[in-house]
């Protein structure tokens, strides 16, 4: 009987349990420490698409793929491009250009996924584009003109454009696309509200948009809207939710052949009906990676040729490592976006101009630039706007001077009367600044906290993920927050970053907390003029306003660094979309 007892006895159970727990511990450890490894060492095409922080996203994507969601949709083939696709794929044995990106595409929705929208410029180019100098020039449009009162815009289309299913591109397609966006998407609803009428002329291949109020930035806006084939999209009722793995009919040098979420890539194939300069690469592939680390590994292993992130640079800390491989060169270009400290202008003490001024002196810009950009950036001016923007005005450089900061604070009435080392606000209570940051700016937040402490200001860091950040920011529940501007963000609204501050606007990344009438008037003035000289005047006025009032304290201007494989030459960058433009793809050739 003893043997029977021993069989399931406590010894065995204890031993088993112990090993089980050891192995669980080790697994947890491994999964903590090497998610990047695991993905990196696999075939790069295998990794699932997921966002930066997102083990849950990964799981959700996986479950979706298990449920066959993507497959169901891909089978209902709406576009006529399939035939073209098949013709094309038959003879494709040319070179492939592979681009790595950390901007993960989460759904196969051509209109609904914003990251996909950026990459689709290659297959469905917008009417306008920005050249390397920052001037707006035609892309699908050969030229445009605008009426005297800035309400009537006419675009003249190139006549050598064909969709990848063989149909010619018509002004109707353009008119359809613009109206379609206005009606169906939230981010272009302004079109719906302001577009009075539009006319199409087959004679000179032109399309005219008439707005109900002066709108001077239409040429810039139209550098972002991808033109769609009307004969295919007009049947699709809800483009924001419409998903399809492709192919999609396009009119650029390439068309989007496949969105493969499971393999994490987009495949662009040459458009057989493209009549312009023929690109060298047969195929362009965009590979998305869950993190910069994985993308770096892919670059190091030669699996991809270059790296692209909209409004972002390649990780500065990775540059050294890539240089060591000897296969990569780098394009370095000043960003027109920047990282800035946004005070909550609606709440004391940050509503006080002197207080902001003092904060500006409390920050050690040199150190931030060194630590955050590793030398690929520089100390900004008080005028906010980076020098690469049009009509840049050289304002006073920001300066690190804690003594001066303390002086200003004292003069403005912030003093430490109870002697606890913390300054009191005007209400007599200790000031405790709440610095709201997203995990990306954790280090910057840490440094700021330290700087403010040196001038006698107590602060508290609050980390929030992106979604929470949007919510809190829109509820004005912060004292200070660190955020950045994108190229498009700098240009939007009345340009020169005004779109971030104007309290009349809304949007994901904007602070909308400045309601100073002087500033609002300036914005309206800029919006009402197309005259270059007048614009120049207003812009310097705006930059002076920034320098004086500091609605935001710029932290650093940085450079966008793009690594590329030395086998390719002919890279072209513009301030808006960096290297991802038609000029790059048309000129790129192998050495």
């Amino acid at each position, binding site marked *: 009987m003893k043997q029977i007892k021993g069989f399931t006895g406590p010894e065995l159970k204890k031993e088993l349990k112990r090993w089980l727990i050891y192995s669980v511990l080790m697994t*947890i*450890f491994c999964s*903590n*420490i090497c998610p990047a490894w695991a993905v990196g060492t696999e075939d790069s095409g295998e990794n699932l698409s997921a966002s930066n922080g997102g083990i849950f996203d990964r799981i959700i994507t996986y479950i979706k793929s298990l449920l066959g969601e993507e497959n169901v949709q891909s089978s209902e083939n709406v576009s006529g491009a399939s035939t073209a696709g098949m013709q094309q794929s038959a003879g494709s044995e040319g070179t492939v250009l592979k681009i790595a990106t950390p901007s993960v595409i989460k759904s196969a929705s051509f209109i609904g996924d914003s990251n996909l929208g950026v990459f689709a410029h290659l297959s469905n180019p917008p009417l306008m584009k920005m050249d390397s100098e920052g001037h707006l020039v035609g892309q699908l449009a050969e030229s445009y003109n605008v009426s005297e009162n800035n309400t009537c815009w006419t675009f003249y289309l190139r006549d050598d454009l064909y969709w990848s299913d063989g149909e010619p591109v018509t002004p109707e397609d353009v008119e359809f696309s613009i109206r379609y966006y206005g009606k169906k998407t939230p981010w272009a609803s302004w079109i719906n509200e302001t577009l009075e009428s539009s006319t199409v002329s087959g004679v000179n291949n032109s399309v005219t948009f008439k707005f109900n109020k002066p709108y001077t930035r239409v040429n810039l806006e139209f550098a972002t809207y991808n033109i769609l084939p009307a004969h295919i999209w007009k049947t699709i009722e809800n483009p924001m939710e419409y998903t399809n793995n492709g192919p999609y009919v396009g009119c650029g040098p390439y068309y989007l052949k496949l969105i493969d979420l499971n393999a994490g890539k987009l495949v662009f194939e040459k458009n057989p009906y493209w009549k312009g300069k023929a690109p060298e690469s047969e195929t362009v592939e965009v590979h998305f990676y869950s993190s910069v680390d994985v993308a770096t590994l892919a670059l190091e292993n030669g699996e991809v040729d270059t790296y692209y992130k909209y409004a972002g640079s390649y990780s500065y*800390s990775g540059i050294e490592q890539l240089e060591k491989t000897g296969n990569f060169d780098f394009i370095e270009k000043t960003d027109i976006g920047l990282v800035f400290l946004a005070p909550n202008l609606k709440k004391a003490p940050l509503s006080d101009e002197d207080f902001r001024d003092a904060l500006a002196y409390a920050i050690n810009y040199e150190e931030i630039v060194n*630590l955050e950009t590793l030398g690929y950036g520089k100390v900004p001016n008080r005028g906010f706007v980076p020098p690469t923007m049009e009509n840049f005005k050289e304002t006073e450089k920001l300066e690190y001077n804690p003594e001066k900061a303390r002086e200003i604070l004292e003069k403005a009435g912030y003093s430490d009367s109870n002697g606890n080392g913390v300054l009191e606000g005007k209400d007599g209570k200790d000031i405790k600044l709440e610095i709201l940051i997203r*995990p990306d700016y954790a*280090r910057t937040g840490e440094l700021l906290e330290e700087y403010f402490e040196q001038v006698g200001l107590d602060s*508290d*860091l609050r980390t929030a993920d992106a979604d929470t950040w949007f919510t809190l920011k829109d509820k004005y529940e912060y004292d200070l927050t660190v955020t950045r501007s994108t190229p498009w963000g700098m240009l939007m609204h009345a340009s020169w970053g005004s779109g971030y501050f104007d309290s009349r606007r809304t949007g994901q990344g904007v602070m909308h907390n400045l309601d100073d009438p002087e500033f609002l008037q300036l914005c309206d003035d800029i919006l009402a003029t197309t005259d270059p000289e007048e614009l120049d005047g207003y812009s310097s006025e705006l930059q002076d306003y920034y320098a004086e009032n500091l609605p935001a304290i710029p932290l650093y201007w940085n450079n966008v660094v793009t690594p590329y494989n030395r086998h390719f030459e002919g890279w072209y960058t513009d301030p808006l979309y960096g290297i991802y433009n038609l000029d790059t793809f048309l000129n790129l050739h192998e050495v």
Partner: protein
Amino acid sequence: MMQKEIYIQESPRQWKDFIAHYLNLDIRKYEKAFKKFNRGGLFLFFFFLILALFPSLFAPYPPTERFVSYEPPSVAHLLGTNDIGNDILSELVYGARISMMVGFASACISTLIGLMIGLCSGYFRGTMDELLMGFTDVVLIIPKIPLIIIIGAFLHPSIWTLILVLGLLSWESIARVVRSKTLQIREAGYVKSAQCMGFSSFHIMASDIFPNLIHVLLPKFMLATASAMISEASLSFLGLGDINMKSWGIMLSFAFSRGGFIRDMWWWYIPPGVCITLCVMSIALIGFGFEGKDENGKRGVDAE
């Protein structure tokens, strides 16, 4: 022999006797167990404990002092420096305190709650038991990490919130164990006779049942500590920790988000990972030791 016992009774000079005498907790009983279980675990644990208590003795620099960033290990910086130039070794040493504090503080909370609920539901039984255990089941099925992420987003994500939330969410298994043990003990003769003699329920729970629960509580407490440390590390790794309190999880998080991995700076990301694993392992080993003690105690022959 008789004299020996009187000696203990009259002069509780040694601290063990003192505790045994006044707190009804005879540590000497556990001594054997302490010696039996993996000395390595105990040694490691005390090593980390000393690190946590006296970081300034071991850390070469204050954790916030900045030097040249991204330095490889050298004599001045044994584990190099990180992205903003902090000495990684110092950060590691100071991190022990945060990580272990989160572990122990939240384990204290959860053990306390678990003990209360388990005791009450096991001792009173009936409706109270059903209500409390129903509640426990509900808490048991709540997915913890996602909930903490959500709560953390809307509360202030400080280390104290984390401790509170981890503590408030991980008492279920303790409550269940305590309850089943209490159900068993409450049938024992000494509890019955205490009831008979008119002791209050509170007195019986505190002085008769609780001391007999300690040997189940201790391992549970240790395991709760270990799991809280892992939860903290996972949350911090996801970037949702309190970056003012540089725990090992936060260090790992920074090592990955700030290029430690790209640059092959293993001296940055391996040590915190190893520390988490070793610390959790040592605590778990001690927990197993307590568990093992109980089992050993019940075996054997009647050799009085």
